[in-house]
């Protein structure tokens, strides 16, 4: 019984990792890198968009 649980742990781990790998490959294939790395720092709810606040 415990041997089955041990093998099930390996199997579930493999399934999860394979799914992530499949999704990772699929995203890399269907989206250009320019879009995927387009995130920019500095936009937040406290201050709004950069440039909204008064600058010296």
């Amino acid at each position: 019984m415990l041997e089955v649980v041990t093998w099930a742990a390996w199997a579930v781990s493999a399934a999860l990792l394979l799914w992530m790998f499949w999704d990772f490959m699929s995203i890399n294939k269907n989206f250009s890198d320019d879009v995927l790395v387009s995130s920019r720092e500095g936009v937040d709810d406290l201050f709004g968009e950069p440039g909204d606040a008064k600058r010296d």
Partner: protein
Amino acid sequence: MSLEIAQAQPKQIQLLKVLGPAHIWALGVGIVLVGEFMGWNYAVGKGGALGALIACWVIGLLYTCVAMIDSEITSTVAAAGGQYTQAKHMIGPLMAFNVGLYLVLAYTMLEAGDVQVAGQLLQIGAANFGYTIPWQPFTVLALALLAFINYRGVFMTLTVNFVLTAAAFASIMALVIGTQPWNPGAMLYHKELLTALPYGWIGVLASLHFGIWFYLGIEGTCQAAEEVRSPGRALPMGTMLGIITLLIAAALTWYVCCGLLPWEYLGWDNTLVPLYDSAHVTGVPALIVILFVGTLFSAIASANGCINDASRAWFSMARDLYLPIWFGAVHPRYRTPFRSILFLIPIAAIFALYIPLAQVITFSILSGLLNYTFMPINMWRFRRMWPLGSIKRGFEHPFHPLPAIVLFVLCTVTFFAVYLGYGRQLLAMMGFYIVASCWFAFHRYRYVKRGDQFTMPWPRPVGY
């Protein structure tokens, strides 16, 4: 086909802003609470039960300063990367690169230790029923499951952490109530078990190293700054409530364990789980089960939060070209830094499966301590460059510069305490960061866009 894909693609993908104060609390306390269930007890081995209590208070003061400073700066510099992003704005690229590495290493090593413990706990649980099972499959399963949750979105990740952390905290409370603290002598024997300092004050000093376990990781709340709906409110509230929770949990943990177990056993507890062992001593089956589940949940919650934080720090460094930009990608559907998450998982797996727990955690503690030493300098510069009133702050911590000074002094003392027990590891770690700094300064820095480093819409700093 390629035209259709191009038309369907958004122009910019940001991390999702979906988190509230409860998630911040769950992230900070979730990473740390495992330290109440194991590890802190080595402070008892170094300084005795009273020495560990002093370490609990002194290191508690250190982390209260960390939480106050973090609450002010992070609620103002609301971007993923936490202290890394702060260092970039307040000090400069080389400091930021080092702080980023401290963060990634501290969280990845802690994550490795957590999943190793989770696997070994299941092995211990099975052994209690007379079965022998390997721990490795369950360590890998925990890592894969948590990676999957992190990959699929931050809201679910930290909601799960909230449930796990609340349950783990409740298990400590259950043990406290179960030991009848209102009836001294029924189960708790502080009068008989609390001895004088067995190794004197040098033992107390050495115990500071392991006192860090009570609180290590509360500064991780900063990493969620870019994903909270209201950074000015959620970050200070979540962080300050987090440190209050931990101070209570640390005091209760010390009180129960030191009232149930003699310091000679507690300080050298080879099964690594003092709260679970304390539950065994009570002889109450329900408490034994509750504490087993609480210990397991705390380890899983800690690993979960660490995956979240390590990936955000790595992602932020890549987004600024401190590392290859490829790691700075955001998943278009789940809005998570999916490449950073997946890249760090095999590293954590290798450390979890092949490196002893004490070594892994020591790497984490040393990196964390270097990060705390940077914080007072960061705070000092933040208030000097942008004095109160010059920019909008989400939170202003009181008594500046006292917390910064206290934090710096306590970090210096704790470094000495670490040197007493882990001098070689400390020097090796410093060597690693010096080599990494050389690599950054002489090779990687040429790729960094210097004009893009400052992203906050603030006025020019005083003196510039």
